[in-house]
């Protein structure tokens, strides 16, 4: 079972992200479960959502305590909430930021992680460009897809279209595509760097 935890703030589509992720996995014939950290949070307050993906029926209802992957939609949360709590040693971390892990001041923390499982991308900027609003979730999901390879970009796009309609959907799709390519390119660079 693969477990994802998504951190963000109310209004950033954190819950929607988890739901889209589950829909994407469902489209690939897998069982999945998405649920919010049930609360009455208002816009701006820290929010958490979860997603589980498995080949068999998922019965577990506890919150994700040991995530295999983290999606952090808002880097300003890093020092407010224990976003890394319970992350597995070789887990995936996707952060919405224009800076690097080092610049974010969590370089030491991610020392032990596989470099290729760490990913930062400026999803908000991409969202603003394509969607016109700072809703980074679609782009981040695409980034997640790219860095984890757990789901295909097509599934993410299908999930986006399942959730949104018309212009909004296509704008998010565009943002997703850009994010996916961006992360792929980062990976290539990294592998070249290693090669050399």
């Amino acid at each position, binding site marked *: 079972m693969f477990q994802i*935890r998504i951190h963000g703030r109310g209004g950033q589509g954190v819950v929607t992200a*988890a*739901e889209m992720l*589950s*829909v994407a996995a*469902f*489209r690939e014939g897998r*069982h*999945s*479960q*998405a*649920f*919010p*950290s*049930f*609360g*009455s*949070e208002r816009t701006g*307050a*820290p*929010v*958490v959502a979860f997603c589980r993906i498995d080949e068999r029926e*998922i*019965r*577990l*209802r*506890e*919150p*994700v*305590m040991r995530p295999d992957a983290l999606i952090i939609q808002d880097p300003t949360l890093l020092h407010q*909430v224990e976003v890394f*709590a319970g992350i597995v040693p070789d887990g995936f971390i996707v952060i919405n930021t224009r800076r690097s892990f080092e610049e974010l001041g969590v370089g030491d923390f991610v020392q032990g992680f596989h470099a290729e499982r760490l990913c930062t991308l400026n999803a908000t900027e991409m969202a603003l460009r394509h969607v016109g609003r700072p809703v980074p979730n679609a782009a981040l999901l695409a980034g997640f897809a790219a860095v984890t390879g757990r789901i295909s970009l097509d599934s993410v796009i299908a999930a986006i279209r399942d959730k949104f309609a018309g212009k909004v959907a296509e704008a998010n799709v565009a943002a997703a595509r850009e994010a996916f390519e961006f992360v792929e390119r980062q990976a290539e660079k990294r592998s070249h760097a290693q090669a050399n």
Partner: protein
Amino acid sequence: MLKQIEGSQAVAEAVALCRPEVICAYPISPQTHIVEALGRMVKSRALAPCEFINVESEFAAMSVAIGASAAGARTYTATASQGLLFMSEAVFNAAGLGLPIVMTVANRAIGAPINIWNDHTDAMSQRDCGWIQLFAETNQEALDLHIQAFRLGEELSLPVMVCMDGFILTHAYERVDIPPQEKVDAYLPRFEPRQVLDPAEPVSIGAMVGPEAFMEVRYLAHARQMRALELIPDWAEEFWRVFGRDTGGLMHTYRTEDADTVVVALGSVLGTVKDTVDELRDRGAKIGVLGITCFRPWPAAAVQRALLKAKRVVVLEKSLAVGLGGIVSTNVRTSYAGRPDSVHTVIAGLGGRAITRASLARVLGLAMEGELAPLEFLDLDMGAVERVLAREHELRRSGPLAEAVLREVGAVASRAG
């Protein structure tokens, strides 16, 4: 048809498939998504003919439902928590009048302190109101139970409450199989009311009944629920034949064949319990699970059979009978004749406190070692409790309790657990 959708959406689609004629809605979390979805369907005529009525309170919601049902319409509403308590008088009345209303209760705690998260206190507070109470383990079961509920209620002329854990199920996205309309129509016949307000055949419904007949009326209510105990398994089976799913019924057992220890629970927590039990089994423990689907009427005989071989029973429940302990466990004891001491009550998940495999494994371990207290509170911060008690002891005006506890545990509202 398989869909990856939110639990509330799934229930809304199930209700729509049952062709309700009157739906009353009053918003309260976490029930809102269900009636919102139904409202959309009625407005778009996807669900027709149907009257969707935005009422001014839960009390009115149930009252409108009473009127609609008495006039022969298939009637649905949904509520939770404070809402269920606010409509309580009408809830009892609907049962007393024998009106087959179906209501979803998105289980949620009862204040004060106000708390919007999940537990079973709301449904349990109404356990003696005369309604049939069914608890869903998954969204698929929640969906299926609604279809069964209309069939059951209308046949017995009794209202049915379908309980599903608030947020945990209502807001969870998972895979559900939405049955085709023709199958639902085949399973659920037209509503043929036992009594109806009709000028062609006038009757007075809701007469005042004195001592000379009240006992009989109440006995008949009981008898009707006893009859339900016989019918529910049959209909679950018929449901299985039509839809190919073994959902509903009175209860479900999991790995209880050779179990010394049986965990009894209701609702969505069963999933977590089953996973925990698998882990314990892997470590060689002889443990199983008994999931209660039908809490009212209480399936005394069935539970008794299921627990026959068990040496000890751990009842995990999301509600507290303050001053007594467990509510479900009190019911279980009646079906565990002669060995009430071996029934342990574990109160868990009140007000949305997460119930984790780890914590479950710990208390079940204790149970199997015979170390578990008769009444246990899962993951209770005893330190915080003691510090509050100590302050109360010192100060007469020790301030509001809830705030005191929050201060002690230093909780953040958005904390995951």
